[in-house]
C-alpha cells in the first residue's frame, strides 16, 4: 500500500470550506463596518467594549475567529504546497502553521470571552 504524508485528497472539502468561511467573514466585516459607521461603536473605548461584549456579537466574533483560522490554514497550506516540494520541510511548515493558527484562535477567543 502506498502511503502519502502529503497530498490533496481533501480538495473539495477544503475548497468549499474556503468559500463558506470567506462568505461568513465578509458578512461579519460588513456588520462591524456598518456598526462603526452608523452605530458609532468605535467612537470611544467604552462603546467598543460594550459592542464586543454583547452576547450576539461575541457569538459572531467567535465564529469569525474560527472561520479566519480555518481559512488561513487552507490558504497558507496551499502556498506551501505550491512552492515547497521536499515532504519533510513541507510537513514541518504545515505543522508550524497549524500550531500558530490554533494558538492564535485560543488567544483571540480568550480576549473576547472574558469581556
Amino acid at each position, binding site marked *: 500500500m502506498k502511503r502519502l504524508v502529503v497530498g490533496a485528497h481533501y480538495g473539495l472539502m477544503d475548497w468549499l470550506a474556503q468559500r463558506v468561511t470567506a462568505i461568513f467573514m*465578509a458578512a461579519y466585516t460588513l456588520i462591524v463596518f456598518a456598526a462603526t459607521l452608523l452605530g458609532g461603536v468605535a467612537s470611544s*473605548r467604552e462603546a467598543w467594549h460594550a459592542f464586543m461584549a454583547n452576547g450576539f456579537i461575541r457569538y459572531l466574533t467567535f465564529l469569525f475567529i474560527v472561520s479566519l483560522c480555518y481559512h*488561513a490554514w487552507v490558504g497558507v497550506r496551499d502556498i506551501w504546497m505550491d512552492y515547497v516540494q521536499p515532504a519533510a520541510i513541507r510537513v514541518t511548515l504545515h505543522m508550524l502553521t497549524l500550531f500558530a493558527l490554533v494558538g492564535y484562535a485560543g488567544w483571540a477567543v480568550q480576549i473576547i470571552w472574558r469581556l
Partner: protein
Amino acid sequence: MPPEIAKPRPKYLALHQIRLPLAGYASILHRVSGAGLFLMLPLLIWLLQLSLEPTADGAAMFSAVMGNLLVKLILLGLLWAFLHHFCMGIRILLIDVQIGVEKQQAHSSAMAVMVVSLALTLILGLKLLGAY
C-alpha cells in the same frame, strides 16, 4: 523533422519576460495579501486585546502603539491587504457561480478589484493616519 519543431530543450521560464493579464497580477496579489495578513495576525490580535483592555494602562498602551509610525505603516499595508483580499475574494466567489467568466468581463472585474481596493485604502487609510 521540420525545423520549427526542433526547439531548444530544456526550456527555462524567464519570469521577467512573462506578460500576465491584469487578472493574473490581481490573483498573485490575492496570495501576497493573504500571506501578509497571516504573518501579521499576532499584531492584529494584540491590538484587539489592547483595544478591549478595560484598565487605564491598557488604554495608554493602545494609544502609544497606535501612535507609532512603523505600526501605522504596517497597518496601512494590512488595510490594503485586507481590502484587496476582500474584493478579490468576492470576484472569485462570483466566478465560482459563473458570473463574469468571459474574458472581457474577467479583465474588467480584475480592474475593478484593483481600483476599488486602492480607493478604499486611500479613504480608510487617511482616517487611520488621522487626516480626518
